[in-house]
């Protein structure tokens, strides 16, 4: 196929050059004048061109200093001779065989001031349909407004909360992936991200299955659309199946249409903008200091020794008295180092700066336009060791050979360098480190910390040895370990458009995207203090992956209007896409030093991997749009798509959709209602699908498993999956668009219902009786189960007041999505619940939404022995055969005063899985955003709010810091722990690796609803007069505050918590880097 695409590209180019060929030898010459001070003077530098009737340029020149020109005239055909100069009226003459043609140019009063061309036509979609003719739900954002005043470093950030039905959760670390969900999650395991379409070319953001790096994760790879937000002109979101159908099944999760800026006719414009942003880290959870920690640990061990009984507690007593780390033992060699008072977190967090500089240049003439941009961004992270540097550049060139034939070439390159520590849990490690330990050696003489890290972290140490993920030195980890990702991406698109006949147009493109990612990581031995023969000692890895995506599209479009009575737009297109990927990774340990961390410099190999994959897709799409009397609209689309990852019989899928719209304001009975500008009713229904990823996952394979003595043994290694098919979804949408009072007040309401059937699931378990134990009894994909998403979206925009000086406007949107499992996949396996601390039961019940939490009801702390007695439903104390009261048990642990009290729902005197109930859901009730903008003359103030309401989450970070179970440092909340009867607290007593005092209960499930002032921005346009003096066209200054206020009841650091990828996983707040407050100041100059 490579060759095929190449071939068509070559053909297209040949075609262009052939059109340029001219023939024969005739000349036309002459002189051009202009009137200066009423005198006729020769005019220098005037463009003289000969073109066809269709304005296709054949040959051209400029006049010399004497105002003379001479041109060779092509042999045959009808021509025009055109004279043009900036500031002059262009003049056109029909060529009738003249050999001499003298012209006098006339000044054009308008053109000098009016170089920026206004839009000639109404904007049309890919399928040639105007917004007015649409029957489906879309929303468009003009990026200029958003970007100009806001310190956004990514597209996702710019869109958050602004679009109805688009739910975005951004991450706090620079360059980390955000999750984007359009109208909820409607798929179980396969990709749920929306499709990104840039200038009509779809780009998949996810990576396919064959990528299985031990060292990399999908977040790193798929992150970053690698588009500079400043290069974007507008973003449109397509939500329902009827509108996404045009982009095939890859648009099943919704589509984000990104249009980049293009060059415009006129003088060359330069824009320079520069922005500095300060990120201020929010206050951290207060943790115990050294003394409080030691006291808490001693308390915990003593309580446990008591609970165990004296006979069994010798081990605990030994621990309590013989552990120098938590005792006063001045003779011990590390005494100084374990009697410090360290705030570990303060060493690994910081305030940071974002620098963002942009330059762009654009211009053009009648024939050609261009735009070039260059931007550089450096975003520091609030966790030490994190950083993102990105350079993007793009070039767009448009050229019109004639009125009929136009070509457009787009080129963009981006280079992003993301730095992060080797592990993402630096912060949580810093929080759990014992605060009485010093990060540095203490000088024996002065008693002050030295420059040398104190790295003791072995199995004799109180907190134990490095276990692969925790127990390391957080400061060294933040400063010296690294996990760097360098991503380079080139995108090239060549597009050609030809008007074959009036109303009949051909458009085709060839697009190529080449993406390479390089990962380098290093874990210094000093951070972990493991021995040099340990596989984590100086662990170093090097991985590389690349992907080449090739796409072509050929599109024929026909548009015709009959006296505004009938209007049809018919389109047919054929799209091919091919994606080829390869990767390798090496991992070594025992590298001699950080400087020698390159895998080739030695050490022992820990792992080696490589892989490659290829996916191909073909789709044919036809669209028909009919408008009757300018008010009744019928739209139909059929997508016929085939994908290489499905077997022959199920490879092709047909996905139809149909939509109706009615412009009621056009009706006679509403014609007189002057304040009504638009009343449009829309309805649509459409189907879409999802296919598995990866190189032919359906293919059955055989592979060798060794030898039986001397005979080769070959075994079936994967099953042929002929039944594997498209996951199909049907979505219907009903909507109203309302425009009132000269469109000052606009409203949109949509209701949708999406039913997804044959849910695709990845890596599904099958019974071992099928004989595939060798493969862990798994098949790559399986279709089963159904899910629905329904909801509504409402958006209002209101320009409340407007005069010459003032503009006051506001906007608001609110969205509700309800996700329901309609039928459970027949093979769905819930993880088995075992009664243990911190664990929540996982249940998927048909008819309930996904993301539900199940656990115990927390009822505080047992105050005294009397309270620990089990009670029956009537509240009477239960007694045993000997008439003694039965004491409550948490699992196998008998409850004592100070232990956690859970509701004994079945009144059996024992807390176990039978007492689990539903305690909440991680799906938000409503989400949305809104803003309020005021503009007075040159000053404008913009605010934007984002909210998510009615959502719950497991506050894992709080659980970890209040569990009082192990050696981890705890938050100051545990100072309120129960110690004696009468303590008014809901925090149980401290225990040491014993008891069930922090079972998965509603104690840690919190409401994380929030309303957040996302942005508050003040901007000022310098008056024109001042600009003129500074030889510029415009200057804009702004100050913006980001995430300044958050209203929430949530006790964690940040209520905006990323949702898990897998739908069967529960949502935890694992104390990721919290979003910081940001203050930005910037300037944009146009000249």
């Amino acid at each position, binding site marked *: 196929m490579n060759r095929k695409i190449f071939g068509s590209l070559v053909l297209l180019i040949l075609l262009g050059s*052939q059109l340029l060929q001219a023939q024969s030898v005739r000349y036309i010459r002459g002189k051009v004048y202009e009137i200066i001070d009423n005198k006729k003077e020769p005019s220098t530098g005037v463009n003289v061109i000969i073109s066809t009737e269709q304005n296709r340029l054949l040959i051209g020149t400029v006049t010399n200093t004497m105002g003379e020109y001479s041109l060779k005239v092509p042999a045959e055909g009808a021509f025009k001779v055109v004279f043009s100069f900036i500031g002059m009226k262009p003049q056109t003459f029909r060529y009738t065989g003249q050999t001499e043609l003298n012209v006098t140019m006339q000044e054009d009063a308008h053109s000098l001031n009016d170089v920026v061309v206004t839009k000639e036509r109404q904007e049309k979609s890919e399928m040639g349909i105007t917004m007015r003719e649409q029957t489906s739900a879309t929303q468009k954002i003009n990026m200029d407004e958003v970007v100009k005043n806001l310190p956004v470093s990514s597209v996702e950030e710019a869109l958050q909360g602004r679009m109805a039905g688009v739910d975005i959760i951004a991450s706090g670390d620079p360059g980390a992936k955000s999750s984007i969900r359009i109208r909820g999650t409607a798929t179980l395991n396969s990709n749920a991200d929306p499709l990104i379409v840039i200038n009509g070319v779809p780009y998949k953001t996810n990576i396919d299955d064959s990528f299985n790096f031990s060292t990399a994760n999908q977040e790193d790879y798929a992150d970053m659309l690698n588009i500079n937000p400043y290069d974007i002109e507008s973003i449109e979101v397509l939500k329902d199946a009827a509108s996404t159908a045009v982009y095939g099944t890859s648009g099943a999760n919704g589509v984000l249409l990104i249009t980049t800026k293009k060059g415009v006719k006129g003088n060359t414009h330069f824009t320079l903008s520069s922005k500095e942003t300060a990120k201020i880290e929010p206050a951290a959870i207060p943790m115990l200091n050294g003394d409080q920690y030691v006291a808490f640990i001693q308390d915990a061990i003593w309580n446990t020794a008591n609970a165990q009984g004296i006979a069994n507690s010798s081990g605990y007593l030994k621990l309590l008295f013989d552990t120098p780390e938590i005792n006063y033992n001045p003779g011990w060699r590390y005494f100084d180092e374990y009697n410090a008072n360290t705030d570990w977190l303060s060493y690994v967090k910081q305030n940071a700066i974002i620098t963002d500089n942009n330059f762009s240049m654009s211009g053009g003439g009648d024939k050609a336009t261009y735009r070039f941009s260059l931007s550089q961004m450096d975003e520091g992270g609030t966790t030490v060791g994190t950083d993102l540097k990105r350079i993007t550049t793009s070039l767009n060139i448009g050229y019109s050979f004639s009125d009929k034939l136009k070509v457009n070439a787009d080129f963009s390159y981006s280079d992003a360098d993301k730095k992060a520590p080797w592990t993402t849990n630096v912060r949580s490690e810093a929080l759990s480190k014992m605060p009485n330990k010093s990060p540095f050696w203490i000088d024996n003489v002065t008693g002050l910390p030295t420059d040398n890290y104190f790295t003791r972290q072995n199995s004799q140490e109180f907190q134990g040895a490095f276990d692969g993920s925790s127990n390391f030195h957080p400061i060294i980890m933040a400063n010296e370990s690294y996990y760097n990702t360098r991503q380079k991406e080139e995108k090239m698109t060549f597009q050609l458009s030809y008007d074959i006949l009036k109303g009949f147009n*051909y458009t*085709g493109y060839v697009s190529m995207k080449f993406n390479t990612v390089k990962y380098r990581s290093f874990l210094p031995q000093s951070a972990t203090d493991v021995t040099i023969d340990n596989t984590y000692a100086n662990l170093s890895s090097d991985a590389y992956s690349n992907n080449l995506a090739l796409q072509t599209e050929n599109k024929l479009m026909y548009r015709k209007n009959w006296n505004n009575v009938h209007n049809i737009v018919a389109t047919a297109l054929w799209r091919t896409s091919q994606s080829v990927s390869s990767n390798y990774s090496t991992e070594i340990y025992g590298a001699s030093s950080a400087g020698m961390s390159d895998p080739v410099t030695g050490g022992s190999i820990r792992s080696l991997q490589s892989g*490659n994959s290829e996916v191909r897709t073909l789709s044919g799409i036809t669209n028909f749009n009919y408008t009757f009397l300018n008010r009744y609209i019928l739209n139909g689309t059929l997508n016929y798509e085939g994908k290489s990852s499905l077997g022959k019989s199920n490879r092709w899928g047909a996905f139809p959709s149909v939509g109706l719209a009615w412009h009621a304001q056009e009706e006679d009975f509403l014609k007189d209602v002057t304040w009504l500008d638009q009343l449009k009713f829309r309805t649509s229904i459409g189907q879409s699908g999802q296919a598995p990823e990866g*190189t032919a996952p359906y293919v059955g*394979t055989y592979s060798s498993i060794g030898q*039986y*003595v001397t*005979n080769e043994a070959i075994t079936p290694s994967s099953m042929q999956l002929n039944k594997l098919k498209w996951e199909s979804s049907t979505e219907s949408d009903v909507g109203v668009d309302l425009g009132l009072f000269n469109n000052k007040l606009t409203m949109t309401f949509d209701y949708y219902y999406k039913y997804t059937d044959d849910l695709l699931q990845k890596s599904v378990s099958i019974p071992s009786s099928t004989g595939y134990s060798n493969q862990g009894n798994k098949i790559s994909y399986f279709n089963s189960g159904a899910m629905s998403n329904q909801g509504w979206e409402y958006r209002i925009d209101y320009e409340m007041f407007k005069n010459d000086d003032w503009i006051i406007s506001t906007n608001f949107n609110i969205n509700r999505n309800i996700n329901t499992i309609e039928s459970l996949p027949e093979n769905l396996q819930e993880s088995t619940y075992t009664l243990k601390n911190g664990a929540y039961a996982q249940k998927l019940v048909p008819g309930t939404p996904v993301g539900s939490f199940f656990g115990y009801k927390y009822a505080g702390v047992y105050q005294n022995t009397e309270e620990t007695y089990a009670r029956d439903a009537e509240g009477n104390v239960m007694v045993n055969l000997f008439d003694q009261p039965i004491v409550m048990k948490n699992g196998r642990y008998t409850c004592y005063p100070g232990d956690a009290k859970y509701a004994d729902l079945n009144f059996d005197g024992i807390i176990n899985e039978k007492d689990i109930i539903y305690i909440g859901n991680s799906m938000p009730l409503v989400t949305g955003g809104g803003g309020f903008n005021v503009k007075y003359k040159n000053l404008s103030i913009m605010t934007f709010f984002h909210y998510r309401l009615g959502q719950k989450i497991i506050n894992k970070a709080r659980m970890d810091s209040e569990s009082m179970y192990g050696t981890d440092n705890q938050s100051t909340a545990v100072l309120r722990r129960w110690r004696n009867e009468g303590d008014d607290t809901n925090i149980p007593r401290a225990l040491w690796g014993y008891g069930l005092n922090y079972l998965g209960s509603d104690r840690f499930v919190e409401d994380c609803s929030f309303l957040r002032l996302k942005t508050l921005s003040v901007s000022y346009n310098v008056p024109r007069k001042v600009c003129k003096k500074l030889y510029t066209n415009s200057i804009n200054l702004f100050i913006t505050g980001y995430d300044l206020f958050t209203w929430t009841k949530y006790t964690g650091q940040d209520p905006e918590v990323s949702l898990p990828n897998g739908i069967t996983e529960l949502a935890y707040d694992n104390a990721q880097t919290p979003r910081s407050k940001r203050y930005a100041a910037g300037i944009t100059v146009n000249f």
Partner: protein
Amino acid sequence: MKAIQHILLTALLIVACSSCNGWLEVTPQDKQTSDAYWTSQEDVDAVLNSGYLYLRNMTEGTLIPLGELRGGSIFSITSNKLQSFQVKPTDESICNWGSFYQIINIANVVLANAQKAQLKDDTYEDQELKAHYSEAYFLRALSYFYLVRNWRDVPLITTAFEDDSHTYHVAKSPEAEVIKQIKSDILAALATGAAKETYNTTWETKGRATKWSLYALMADVCLWSEDYAEADKFCDFLIHSSVGNAPALLTTPTHAKWFSMFNPGNSNESIFELQWEYQENQTNSLPILFDNLNTSRKYQLSYQLLLDFNSEYSYTQEEQLEAVRSMFGGYYTDDVLTWEAATKGYVWKYCGSQTLSDKRTATYYDPNFIIYRMAEVYLMKAEALVLKSDSKADWQTAIDLINDIRRRSNLEERVFTDDLKEEDMLKMILYERRMELVGEGKCWYDLLRFGRRNHNKYKTTFLVDNVTLYNKQAGESWLISVLSNDDALFLPVCESELKANSLLVQNPYYY
């Protein structure tokens, strides 16, 4: 107009070429796809070999523990839930039956596809195809026989899982139905008339399915299903075979001759044994697992069995005869010099080298694992004869058969007397099996078969009493209470399997 032509042509070209479905046919580069397999005789051979390989790989982890630990002749020195009868559905490593079904699928796949290969391979003779079928039938029958003996009722799957056209969810079939399938498989294999008597190499003759192994398996299955006349018949096919290359009982009463069954192995007595070969880097841990001095050892003889062996050894010492299957044959002790005082015994079969008391060296850690040999066939016939009828003549023959085994071990012969009852006869046979076949993965199945037959007639005598006598790894009262429940004699269906197969129901004992 030229331009239009060009554009239309290009568009057409792309449409026409791309529309071919072939372009969407992308196959993984590093694997053999199943639709391109099955083109030659070698392909069929290779798949069958993986069946044997799977079975071989199960020896240490499955065949030995399942066959031995519950019976009590051998116990694991580290705690093991099998020997303490505490297996739970969550003990995946013990009760996951997947590896047996792996072999069954291999057999099913061969039966479904071998003919395809024959169509493409002109050199693939009909006789060879049938021979391959008979091997597949054997592998399937043997696997199901293991399944039935351990789980009793199991899903009966005779179609190949090559693609997803068959449902993954299959309910259990009752024991009798599975047994019926096993028998019909063996008969089908024999009916092909192509089951081999020998292969080109000795190791294949003993390491792959032959006509002889089919006979032995059939006799075993018939004894299990209490079809004694048939069992007797199939034993006779082996014992009275007139074919020159048929396996035959070794009769020379010397240690060297007897021990040659285990080292070097593939003896004339052997019918079917799983093969290892150190020269091909195929070794196993059997010599380590049974070695008294190795720190990785795992198995030891129960004290009662040590006493049994000691008494056989002391007989040969008193009679000044060569010890054959006792010291350095079936067993050896931690204290060879004062063996009477020894407290621990080990299986010598897998550790011993060709010299009497030296162990295999690490290079030779490739002892084979015998599944059927002639001694067992003799004892199976004896068992069949005793149960088939009350005929004294038959019983006399049974005693003769037992004596054939004892004679070559220089042990005193059993004498037939009229007052011997069925129970006494069976006791003799069971004793002989225990001593002769120790460590060969038979003990528990023997106890189970003897105890369950004839509606649990001898359950106490043979099953309960023997387990409590030999198995000291669990309390006697616990053992008695567990064994009293017929369902507890079989393993639970493992948790993951129950989840993955919606039609499965747990063995009631493990609810």
